[in-house]
């Protein structure tokens, strides 16, 4: 399988990393979390969602939980995903990059006010 590109990090992949920041989620859970954290702006369809999950898995930015752990969490049999330390690092560096971008935008007076 050829490598899927994560550099530059697609926004869908970044949102998935963020959604897993403080909880393990299954696919649908990720989708809902992403929708929530973007104010409904990004609703990941199955194709995009699982394609992104697959590339993040391959790059070991997230990992799939053992089925046994699944069962402990109860509910139906679903695959749960968890952020790895590399994934956390990646999310942080991406956030830093965006923050830098934001500083530039503010200094160029693209943004009004001085939030962030």
């Amino acid at each position, binding site marked *: *399988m050829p490598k899927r590109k994560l550099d530059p990090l697609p926004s869908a992949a970044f949102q998935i990393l963020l959604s897993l920041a403080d909880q393990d989620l299954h696919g649908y859970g990720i989708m809902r979390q992403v929708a929530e954290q973007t104010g409904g702006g990004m609703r990941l369809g*199955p194709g*995009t969602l*699982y394609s992104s*999950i*697959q590339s993040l898995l391959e790059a070991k930015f997230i990992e799939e939980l053992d089925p046994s752990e699944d069962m402990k969490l109860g509910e139906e049999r679903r695959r749960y995903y968890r952020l790895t330390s590399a994934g956390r690092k990646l999310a942080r560096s991406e956030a830093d990059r965006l923050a830098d971008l934001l500083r530039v935008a503010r200094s160029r007076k693209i943004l009004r006010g001085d939030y962030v």
Partner: protein
Amino acid sequence: MSETIYAFLLRLFPSQFRETYGEEALQLFRDRARDETGLSSRARLWFDLLADLVISVPREYFYAEPELIAASGQHFGGTPSFYFLGDSAPRPGALLLGAVLSLVAALTFSSLLSQGGVHKPRNASARQLRQSAPPAHAARQVAGNKDSLAAGTNKTLSSASFEQGDSDDSMPAPINEAGASVAAPVGRGNLDAAERQLVVDAAITNLKQHYVYPDRAQKIAETLLAHKKRGEYDAIADGDTFAHQLTKQMRDVSHDMHLELVYSRDPLPPQPTEEQTPEKLARYREAMKQINCAFEKVETLPHNIGYLKLNFFPDRSECEQTVTAAMVSLNNADALIIDLRDNRGGMPNMVALLASYLFDHPEYFYNPRENTTQESWTHSPVPGNKLADKPVYVLTSSRTISGAEQFCYNLKMLKRATLIGETTGGAAHAGVWHRIDDHFGMGIPETKPINPYAASDWADTGVEPDVKVSVPDALEAAVKLAQTKLQKK
């Protein structure tokens, strides 16, 4: 129900993706369908799913594809090998679908091929158009036929037009439709003694009757008869070869490049249309309107360089307004590029009209087909025109022929324009057309126009450009030259 539909749509994904995530995707659909009820939510759900399919399916195939390439990379020196792309046999349904699709593709392809046979290039339609509706004072090309070969029915022209034919057969090109009523075509290679005799006799008769130089006609007649007597023609069974041989011999004697004998594999039209009916005129007018009188482009390029692309010279009486409008819109240009790379000739009156804008006094425009008349001069100066002293660049190609060559030739001789591109096609069409039989005809000059520049014009040789560049590069070259010139000012 909707789950079944989505399950079906999921099959669009590559099998690898389906195997790994198909069940999860379906689960996700179930979850959303459960949580998002109500009409608008449902509509949004389906919109999301479809948009997702459109984006994801091609991407997944993009990722699935290179794997196959990688697999086929492991080849063992010439040993035929094949690869399994899936681990299960295709379903009967898939095989059936494949068979139907291949059948449809094969049928489409073969029907397209047969359609291709009747495809006519753009020039053909333009030529037909002129053939079906010659302008009011266009050439009346009268042809003789077998019965009236020497009967003197061939009329000379009062005014002449250039024919939009192909450069190789520079005489009027045969039109299949018009010749439909004529006998079956004589293929190459079966020219018989009777037809050779007929062609030589008719050529001599026509020359004696119509050639503007009777003394030369006599000499040619003697030469041809001598060749024939020596049996030089007996072995020629190919019409084209025969026509070329006779043309060469006529020219050797007369040194007149406008004399020409033409062979056409397709039957020549029995009698070119000479009557100008209101319907034909209306058709011509309508056609001119539709193609904007052959003005393909009129625009101002950067650095205020005017650009004009004209694909043939239409009749002045129908298109004068269009020319005026085009030239008015370019009137403030600092330089002018006239693109004749696709120009197949046309009416001399339009050649003179367009050229009128390039001079501040009437200039003589030599036309090998017309006696010198008032029409041989440009109508300069044109009131209000500011282009008379601006640099002019004319783009040419080997497809530039006939009337377009008259335009190029005169501008070059007058040193009024820089010609850029290829040598033009070399079709002077100076002779008047005389039909000999279904497959042979000849062009005979019947006028003595004055060529003030040289003994020869562009017949067969074409007009040489001042700057030789490949056709696609001509415009860029012209723009560069124009810019350099304008900067020097």
